[in-house]
């Protein structure tokens, strides 16, 4: 089975279901992208996969192990890392402290080595290591957020709109970094508003509407699909 698999997810925040039988999966060394209109349930689907939302139906497995009942913290410790859409850094703490907190669950002595690796991936963070994350620009903050998530050395990295509010140049750079992370064998699942660019680097894409899978395919297929182009990619 595919490394991280969510099947038939159904549930919501209250009485009404936001997710209606949505299925998403991603393998190691692969990038899967979720696109769709605002309010489609993209963030909700991610939260469900992370265990921050109680599902009424459905099952989530990681490496053939059922993790549906695990708490978010437990999922973090089995290798799933998450970069939330908003409030994704500790604003009152330095860049380096943000990274250290990312490694909170680790008890080995190589944490500083991982931090140096993150600085190699995101050189600007190394330069700003003593600065509070709250004082950084939007793009730099996103790098801190991704860096913090990478500190657990995860096998799955989930990103909710990592490029929201950053300039096109920074977006390209972030995507390059994400491709580098993919090369290390991490399974990457991201929600993206910049659908066309994201599908370009994606191995797999999901179009989500009203909490269900509307279209699925590899990146090029979805980009070539006229319905998808017209409704979600703006022509």
């Amino acid at each position, binding site marked *: 089975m595919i490394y991280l698999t969510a099947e038939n997810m159904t549930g919501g925040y209250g009485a009404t279901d936001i997710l209606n039988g949505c299925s998403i999966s991603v393998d190691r060394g692969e990038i899967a992208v979720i696109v769709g209109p605002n309010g489609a349930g993209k963030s909700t689907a991610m939260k469900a996969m*992370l265990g921050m939302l109680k599902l009424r139906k459905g099952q989530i497995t990681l490496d053939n192990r059922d993790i549906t009942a695990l708490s*978010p*913290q437990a999922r*973090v*410790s089995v290798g799933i890392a*998450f970069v*939330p859409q908003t*409030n*994704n*850094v*500790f*604003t*009152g*703490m330095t860049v380096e*402290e943000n990274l*250290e*907190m*990312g490694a*909170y*669950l680790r008890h080995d002595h190589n944490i500083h080595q991982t931090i140096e690796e993150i600085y190699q991936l995101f050189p600007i963070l190394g330069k700003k290591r003593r600065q509070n994350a709250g004082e950084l620009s939007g793009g730099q903050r996103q790098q801190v957020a991704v860096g*913090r998530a990478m500190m*657990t050395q995860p096998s799955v990295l989930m990103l909710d709109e990592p490029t929201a509010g950053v300039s096109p140049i920074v977006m390209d750079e972030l995507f390059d970094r994400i491709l580098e992370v993919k090369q290390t064998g991490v399974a990457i699942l991201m929600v993206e508003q910049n659908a066309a660019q994201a599908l370009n680097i994606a191995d797999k894409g999901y179009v989500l509407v009203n909490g269900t899978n509307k279209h699925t395919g590899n990146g090029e297929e979805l980009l070539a699909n006229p319905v998808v182009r017209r409704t979600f990619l703006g022509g």
Partner: protein
Amino acid sequence: MLELTDIINALVLLSNFVLIPALSYGSQLAMGALGITLVYGVLRFSNFAHGDLMAFGTMLTILLTWWLQSIGISLGAFPTALLALPFAILGAIALSLIFDKSVYQFYRNQKSSPVIFVIVSTGVMFMMNAIVRLIIGPNDQRFFDGTKFIIHPREFKDFTGLSEGLAIKSTQLLTVVITLVTVIALFWFLQKTRTGKSMRAYSDNEDLALLSGINPNKVIWITWIIVAALATTAGTLYGLDKSFKPFTYFMLLLPMFASAILGGIGNPIGAVVGGYVIAFSEVLVTYAYKKFLIYLLPEFMEPRGLAQFLSTDYKFAVSFIILVVVLLIRPTGIFKGKTIR
């Protein structure tokens, strides 16, 4: 003609009645405000029971001190209370954790709003209040022993020939020294240790802290442990310096909250600075400057009244006014704490 001895006499007077008392009172407020600010930062509510937690911890110190004295143990020149303090801290920690487990945890699980928490903490306040009054009663208690003065005013006078004698009480020096050590230790803990950083992270962004695998229960327990230790230490020092009366400790809530909010609630440095600002304001405004002015002014300009801005009976008005002005002009405080909601 203004003589040098007059100037020195005036300064000695000022340091006896303003500088030194405000410094030690400010230290006590600072430690109290630190506790309030930590609870606000981590548990996200204004803890109205903080004054009574101080009273409870101090009561334990007093009872233990009396017991130690009764079996003939003392610390010589130092107050016996210092020996009792660590054990009293353990008691205050136990009470805090019991209240957290039996009361606050329930509302945390309910995800109650801050307003509910404030009301709940008021309930806890009444309970602690009752416990203290049941055990030790509502009256004034003195429990100071040891050497009273570091610098004795009469000896100072004899030695210098000045007409004003500088007085530094041992409790004042102890207060300042213990506060300094405690505050440095606390800041080191928050800035440098893994656990301290996880407390700051949790206070900064709870959801992200959970996603990073930080255990919220551990953070909350450690916060109560630190808060109970700070409250008991501050209360004991205040009681040694002045005296212990449960009602006085309840009243300290106002200047302590004023300190925390003035400095920026949730911000530990702000709490310390706020404590000293409030203490100095209170003492400066309620000090009668008559004698001070007599030393400095020519005879015909001498004040007729006490030259006092506000009677000491109204000293809490100072905190109150500062509190109101800060909330109106700069609700985030000097050091940009969180806005109070």
